[in-house]
């Protein structure tokens, strides 16, 4: 029983991290029709800059804010320099965002060195609670809470505010939104920056969770996020949460019971969904 609870918490925590990455990806795709292969690079930059800020100030709050700011700045640069010139051309988008992914992860090695960097858990969140036989690691619980909080905030923004309304309408039909006099390009930029910020937040939260950070982690997590976005349905925000949790849980249970299949199971899941239900389990609805 305690094993199952531990695996459950593990899976949920990983799922939430993937969700933070996938949420931006799915919104960007839904709204802009851009599949951002550089998203993992933003995630890794969040992790590295967060750890750097943490080492500088010893405050985890500053680290999180620093990482989010890094994400926003990088998101701005990416949208302006990389996405805008090839807007509307899928093949060029795929090629160019992948190229930017290489640049981002190589830049990480230039700035922070090519080696793995150890990341410490902040003292307030380290350690664990023991309830009976069940050991609950505080940091994992923290990640789950942050994930739920982010989901709540975004769900509120999307459903209750004017900008959320525009974004949802844009996902459904961008020409119509444009025809109604809304500068959709501006909205694209904001959504991209927010998506990048979420990826960076995911990265900084990931750092103490895995203990070490390295430049390649971006691509590893981006693949998981792609899987989640496909399973959840491109453009669907709740879909990506559910799919992320599914992928996280499948990963943690498989890693324990059938370790050989732990990575393969997600890819097979995606392959099956893509072949039989290419629009994903949930379709984007207003």
């Amino acid at each position: 029983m305690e094993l199952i609870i531990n695996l459950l918490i593990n899976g949920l925590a990983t799922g939430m991290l993937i969700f933070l990455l996938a949420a931006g990806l799915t919104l960007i795709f839904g709204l802009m029709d851009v599949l951002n292969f550089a998203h993992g690079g933003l995630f890794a930059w969040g992790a590295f800059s967060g750890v750097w800020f943490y080492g500088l100030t010893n405050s985890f709050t500053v680290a999180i804010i620093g990482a989010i700011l890094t994400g926003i700045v990088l998101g701005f640069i990416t949208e302006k320099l990389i996405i805008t010139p090839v807007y509307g051309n899928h093949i060029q988008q795929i090629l160019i965002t992948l190229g930017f992914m290489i640049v981002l992860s190589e830049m990480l090695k230039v700035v922070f060195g090519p080696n793995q960097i150890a990341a410490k858990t902040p003292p307030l969140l380290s350690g664990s609670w023991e309830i009976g036989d069940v050991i609950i690691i505080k940091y994992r619980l923290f990640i789950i809470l942050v994930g739920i909080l982010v989901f709540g905030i975004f769900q509120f923004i999307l459903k209750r505010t004017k900008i959320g309304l525009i974004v949802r309408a844009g996902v459904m039909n961008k020409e119509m939104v444009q025809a109604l006099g809304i500068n959709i390009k501006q909205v694209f930029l904001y959504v991209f920056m927010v998506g990048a910020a979420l990826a960076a937040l995911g990265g900084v939260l990931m750092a103490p969770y895995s203990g070490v950070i390295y430049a390649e982690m971006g691509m590893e997590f981006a693949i998981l996020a792609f899987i989640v976005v496909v399973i959840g349905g491109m453009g669907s925000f709740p879909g990506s949460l559910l799919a992320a949790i599914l992928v996280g849980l499948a990963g943690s249970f498989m890693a324990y019971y059938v370790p050989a299949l732990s990575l393969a199971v997600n890819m097979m899941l995606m392959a099956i969904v893509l072949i039989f239900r290419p629009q994903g389990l949930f379709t984007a609805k207003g």
Partner: protein
Amino acid sequence: MKTKFQVNNGILLVLVAALAVFPFVSDSRTWTILLTQIFIFSILAMSYDILLGYTGIVSFGHAMFFGMGAYATAIMLDHFEPTLSVFFLSIAVGMVISGVISFLVGLLTLRLKSHFFAMLTLAVSGLFLVLAEKWRTLTHGNDGFTFRAPEFFKDRVMFYLLVLACLVLVYFLLRRFVSSPLGRVLIAVRENEQRTKSLGFQTLHYKVIASMVAGIVASLAGSLYAISLRFVNTSVLTMDITLDALLMTIIGGVGTLIGPIIGAGVIELAQHYLSGLAKEYPIFERWIIFFGIIYILAVIFFPRGIVGTIRHAFWKRKTNEPKVNVAPKRKELLK
């Protein structure tokens, strides 16, 4: 058209002849090995160009066919006698496996839109990487294994000549392939798949054939690569190989078989020299960053690549060769 190809052929023959006598003139071991490497990656990049340049599909899983060829050769030479006949048999086995896998994967995935196809190929090649890492009895996982190459290749020059012959053969076969009626349909698919469909072509079939051809040729490159190293590990299946092919094709020029060869040369040479420079200037250890930037600029400003841009400038008026475009214009995509 005709005169241009003859001129091209003449220059090519001279070049090939020069390359063929090169190892007998020069004693440089480094250069022989470097050129061998360039030829191998040229074959890989040309096979990638069939997908990207001629059919207009972006695959992120090309490394899996390269890896299959490499593993087929390595495993067969390791398990049986390291003779020439086993070597050629292993190339055939790698090609058959790659052909079958690319047929199956293509049939399942090529009906999807470009985004999904790119992602799914990424995932499938990831699966093969995991498989190779876990199936240690066969592949020895990440540690890899060394094996004995056939006696015939103990002499680097012999292997160099074999690879050069393969390159020339593959180049001419692929050129024949893309200028065949089938190849013309592929170009039509690249230019406008909807219209090709409405002309009555079952585009999926043509795309599957393109991906099979690309897979089979990539497998040949993998087999040769394994021999050149006499060692194989899971790195032959990683994303890096696909990225190499992608960079070579884009920088050299998509949709122009010669382009990928030049791209392979440029990248391999630059890699060689830039990593040499790294001893003095540490920034050059990250030489790939320059390629990333050049690649991004190329995608935005020179989507034709080196060869495409030159060819476009010189032969624009003289011939009516089909224009080379990475992808349709913006307004066509907004439909």
